[in-house]
């Protein structure tokens, strides 16, 4: 990491800490199984295997969330944990990196445990927004709701496999051809009505092995045929996807459009939409201008575990934060009951690129020159600054012959004279407790 990266990292960590979050360390090596069942396709294809020599396949962590949920479950904690973590995450990248592994420095934030959904979603998004803002970048929040979309599609009575296909391809909303192709693929064996089931039953007389019984095969054939024959369900789903894809980016107009869509749908859809609307109101209360909040219906995430509100925070040119609600993850990792959770991660390298030349908000410690004759006084001065919330760094024997001065930025203080340093200490003590 360069000093620019470190500055942005510190700036983001300070923002998060100001909200009362606790830092946790998470393992860099994890069991592959932790990610195999939950991660999205692009992440799964880029997991970095470790030749552990043991019986359990191990990987380098591709993200923080699954590790944080595992930690939460082992603690047996019933309260809401507000955590953040930082460090490298790893992906396979055969094209650009000489080692074939891409390492990204990231910071993650996780809120795990019970609480008001809208409130916690808004808190997570607001922290991400102000963390990006602290690096001197103007953030834009993009929102979508995976949970609401899933509930709306389930309401059409589409087959479970097709629902999964829709949810995993939600970046392709601009067209529904892929859905029709999928149905064609699935119903290929059922082209002539009724024939396939008969054909299937006859074929089962042939050699059969394994645990799949003739009943299993017969039931699936019947289901496939039903899937193809049910035109109204398909039409309903495609209409729904078209309306979703056409949602405007203005949150007020989008929510109003969705009100019409959910009217004829299960009551749970209305509840989810209410939560979404509450979250947007709370973001405004957190000081985020409405012009910086956009609805992004085609917001795609690389993780399958998202179950509710999902979001990205971007600069004018690139995505800096990915996050969302993942209420089902704890259960799939062995919890007996669902644990509400939300979180995000931010790429330090990406944000440093975006903020280059914009150093106004960058963390800069005060540099204090030390030499043996003033060591004691400078140490006291540094400590006084730190306990009053100012970062201070001792620089050994920096320019010790220099005159007494504080540079124009106030970031470098130099003096060889103990009385001068003592006077600085007295001045600071006079101001302790005052705003400036």
């Amino acid at each position, binding site marked *: 990491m360069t000093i620019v990266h470190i500055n942005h990292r510190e700036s983001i960590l300070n923002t998060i800490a100001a909200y009362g979050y606790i830092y946790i360390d998470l393992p860099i090596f994890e069991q592959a199984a932790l990610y195999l069942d939950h991660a999205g396709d692009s992440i799964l294809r880029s997991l970095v295997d470790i030749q552990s020599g043991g019986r359990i396949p191990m990987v380098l962590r591709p993200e923080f969330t699954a590790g944080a949920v595992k930690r939460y479950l082992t603690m047996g904690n019933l309260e809401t944990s507000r955590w953040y973590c930082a460090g490298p995450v790893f992906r396979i990248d055969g094209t650009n990196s000489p080692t*074939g592994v891409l390492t990204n420095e990231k910071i993650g934030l996780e809120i795990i445990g019970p609480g008001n959904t809208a409130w916690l979603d808004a808190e997570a998004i607001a922290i991400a927004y102000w963390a990006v803002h602290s690096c001197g970048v103007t953030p834009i929040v993009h929102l979508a709701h995976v949970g609401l979309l899933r509930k709306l599609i389930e309401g059409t009575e589409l087959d479970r496999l097709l629902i999964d296909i829709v949810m995993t391809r939600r970046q392709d909303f601009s067209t529904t051809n892929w859905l029709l192709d999928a149905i064609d693929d699935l119903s290929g*064996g059922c082209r002539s009505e009724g024939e396939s089931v008969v054909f299937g039953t006859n074929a089962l007389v042939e050699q059969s092995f394994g645990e799949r019984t003739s009943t299993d095969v017969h039931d699936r054939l019947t289901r496939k045929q039903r899937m193809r024959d049910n035109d109204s369900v398909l039409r309903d789903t495609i209409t729904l996807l078209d309306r979703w894809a056409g949602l405007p980016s203005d949150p007020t107009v989008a929510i109003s459009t969705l009100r019409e869509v959910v009217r004829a749908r299960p009551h749970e859809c209305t509840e989810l939409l209410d939560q979404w609307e509450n979250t947007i109101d709370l973001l405004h209360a957190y000081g985020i201008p409405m012009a910086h909040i956009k609805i992004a219906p085609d917001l795609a995430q690389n993780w399958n575990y998202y179950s509710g509100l999902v979001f990205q925070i971007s600069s004018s040119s690139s995505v800096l934060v990915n996050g969302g609600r993942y209420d089902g993850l704890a259960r799939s990792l062995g919890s007996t009951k669902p644990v509400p959770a939300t979180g995000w991660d931010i790429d330090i390298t990406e944000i440093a690129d975006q903020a280059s030349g914009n150093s106004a908000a960058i963390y800069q410690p005060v540099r204090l020159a030390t030499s043996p004759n003033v060591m004691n006084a400078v140490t006291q001065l540094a400590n006084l600054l730190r306990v009053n919330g100012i970062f201070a760094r001792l620089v050994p024997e920096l320019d010790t012959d220099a005159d007494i001065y504080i540079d124009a930025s106030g970031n470098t203080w130099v003096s060889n004279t103990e009385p001068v340093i003592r006077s600085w200490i007295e001045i600071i003590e006079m101001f302790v407790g005052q705003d400036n």
Partner: protein
Amino acid sequence: MVKTPIRLALPSKGALAEPTNTFLERCRFPIVRPNSRQYTGYLKDLDGVELLFQRVRDVAQQVSIGTAALGITGLDVVQELADPKICVVNDRLGYGHCRLVVAVPKSWVDVDTMLDLADVALEFRQKHERSIRIATTYPSLTRRFFLANNIRHFSIVQSEGAVEAAPAIGFADMVVDLTQSGSTLRENALKVIGKGTVLESQACLIANISVLEKLKDELRPIQYLFEGIDASLAGSGYRQISASFLVEDRETARSHLDNVLPNLHQIDLTLSPLYQSGAEIGYRAVFFLPSSHLMATIARLREQNAVNILLHSPEAVFGESSPTWEKLSTLLEQEKNC
């Protein structure tokens, strides 16, 4: 000073061994192997190249560790190994064709595509409380392919032989295996499913670029070898046709040819007078064509009343440059700049 020969690893046994011998012979570099139990040999008419005979999988390993700078093996092996030290410099040597495919029991008549398989994988999870088991000798390619097809509930049973028998024996539910005609799979009551081709494979030429970079002043024999390979491959894709038009003047012959070859201006063509008993009786055309256009062109020649249509196969076609050598040169340049 005696130059170090550059080592080329070749398959010693298996489906690629004999076709590799034939291939190099066709490229005019026949293999000389003093006896079949010896692991080294050389190429007749090409000094500076030493041959190292290994099993197909070991060819890639030897190139990876640098024992051999070059190798000929199957693309399936190289893709499975996914070793950044191995660069494929020619992935179409034109023999050893096979497919790595997903095959399920024939009794699964409800499973026709990878989408079906995704559903069945979920069914296994729900009904049998376990993942679907796939027997294969290609665990990495299989894993990548299944994940790319949105199937995540599966476990791989790595097997080194008789993969196709795994479902019948009972240690797997299905297989991912190599096939040429599909007959072995069929004999084991398995069927290939739609969109279930993991990889189309054939013999390929691989290189360890960092090893070759160190030998960059001694690569002339490799350039000759690659030129020979490319010329032979190009030759197998072309046919030379000659045909006679019994017409009075050259312009009429040209107009017949225009009807036969719509892109006549792009083809190298010889059109010369044809004599019989000292008298000019017409014109004879000689030109090259891609093999795939052959039968359609012959049909059109007949329509234009062409006679004495003869067909020849060129042994080799030397182009302006050798694409394989060009690719290697580019990779060497990149390695130098790294």
